[in-house]
């Protein structure tokens, strides 16, 4: 079985993040860039499937050159190889464009299964899995907190607002996962050393047969008109409980007409 895991490099959600003033894209230069956290769970799930069913796991990333650091980190967890799509013309892509590039790269690899995170921590679109499935004409099982693979049959527990749904499909399919699905392994020293020698294929848009005009700023289907910082929230009144903290709290709520 051939499994592709989608890995996006994002600015660390634990630090301050900004958009650039010149072209409204994420300021990656000043950020500490990391693997999108949810994608580590996708990698782990793919590795567990490989352990049971055999086959290979290929990491796929669309992103600038420096995303290569995240690819090596992903490989140190255990995948076999990676494909890095990097092309100046991809910069500024909207989700429609990004999904086009991802779908083209996936078609070339021709996997049985695609595993990805349910959402990215920077844009939080939750769009890519269904967009890819729509483009490739394959099933999407999204928001999985549990995945069972039985031959070509896939069954997930899909997390919903008030519980879960059991959804099934046959491969080929896209499965997106939440962080409740497993506990990602830490890369071992051996894994880190091995990752340095694993093959990483670099692909340009031309290699994928995607016209540059259909992605990036040129092909974008939406545009950021302006952006700015919101003023940070101000701290209000703080009291120390000396027996009447609960009552004071309720007095505050009442004064704001909240109870």
């Amino acid at each position: 079985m051939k499994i592709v895991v989608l890995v996006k490099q994002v600015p660390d959600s634990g630090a301050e993040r900004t958009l650039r003033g010149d072209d409204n894209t994420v300021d990656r230069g000043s950020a500490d860039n990391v693997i999108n956290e949810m994608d580590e769970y996708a990698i782990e799930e793919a590795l567990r499937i490989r352990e049971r069913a055999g086959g290979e796991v290929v990491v796929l990333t669309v992103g600038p050159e420096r995303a290569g650091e995240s690819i090596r980190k992903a490989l140190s967890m255990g995948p076999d190889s990676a494909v890095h799509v990097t092309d100046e013309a991809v910069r500024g892509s909207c989700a429609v464009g990004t999904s086009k590039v991802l779908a083209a790269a996936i078609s070339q690899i021709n996997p049985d299964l695609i595993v990805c995170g349910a959402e990215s921590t920077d844009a939080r679109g939750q769009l890519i899995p269904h967009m890819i499935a729509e483009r490739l004409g394959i099933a999407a099982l999204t928001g999985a907190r549990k995945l069972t693979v039985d031959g070509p049959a896939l069954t997930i527990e899909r997390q919903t607002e008030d519980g879960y749904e059991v959804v099934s499909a046959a491969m080929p399919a896209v499965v997106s996962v939440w962080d409740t699905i497993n506990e990602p392994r830490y890369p071992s020293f051996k894994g880190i050393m091995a990752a340095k020698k694993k093959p990483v294929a670099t692909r340009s848009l031309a290699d994928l047969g995607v016209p540059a005009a259909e992605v990036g700023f040129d092909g974008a289907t939406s545009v950021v008109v302006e952006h700015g910082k919101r003023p940070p929230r101000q701290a209000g009144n703080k009291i120390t409980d000396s027996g009447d903290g609960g009552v004071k709290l309720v007095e505050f709520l009442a004064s704001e007409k909240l109870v």
Partner: protein
Amino acid sequence: MAEVLVVVEAAPATGVKKVTLELLTIARALGEPSAVVLGAPGAATAVQDKLAEFGARTIYAVQSEDLDAYLVAPKATALADLITAVSPAAVLLAASQEGKEIAGRLAIKLGNGILTDVVGLDASGVATQLAFAGSTVVKSRVTKGIPLVTLRPNSVTPVPAPASPVLENVAVEVAENDKLARVLNRVAERKGSRPELTEASIVVSGGRGVGSADNFKLVEELADLVGGAVGASRAAVDSGFYPHQFQVGQTGKTVSPQLYLALGISGAIQHRAGMQTSKTIVAVNKDDEAPIFELADFGVVGDLFKVVPRATEAIRERRG
């Protein structure tokens, strides 16, 4: 005036979701709102009155057992067909998991731009989004096709505008290629009669400081008393105190209620990502230095096991 399509979300128990009423309210500023009900037969009549109350001029009843039996793909196709038939001025959905997924497929089918998780949309089609944990305001616009947006719940106040909608049945035939992901079962997990987390006007959340699953009763009791939803920090979820679907934050739900009560939550940046656009924030924490106090409109430094029961009692006393 051009039609604006609003995709309806409803729950069997509680009816039309508040976010749908918000969408109808916004739609009125853009054109004539039409509600689209995508579901099993009978779904549209069940919600008709509410949609009328909030100004729907037309209700498109797009109904088939198949729309419920498979994951989003048939709904996206049916909606795309309707859009092609009526050429609306805009299409609005809820920024729920399903709303985003339908919109994503739609964008590909129609070659249309999409703006997700917007908190506002003006008459010229410019949307407001809050990025990076609510720290950045972004104004954006679709440049290819019509405005296709998903709205974050609790972004606007729903305003009634009674209308007498026409119910139009729309025939659907689901293609084999949209039947790839079959829903075998839907399972509800415990929630009681509480409002949905993202829609609630009050959210009472507990963190690691709550200490145990059993102690979460304290959080639930206060939430029920004020008609709120219960939320939890990731540490509380990871410790098994409360189920994951109630997690608030970067990797959980984004909430924007009138009141957010944080009990035993330190206020890590990833937690703040999910709640800092709340109108009023109140925190109880025994650590005077907890970062949650930096954004709390009212903070109590103290032991939540003393403060919360006393607050609960005080609310009961007030109500007599």
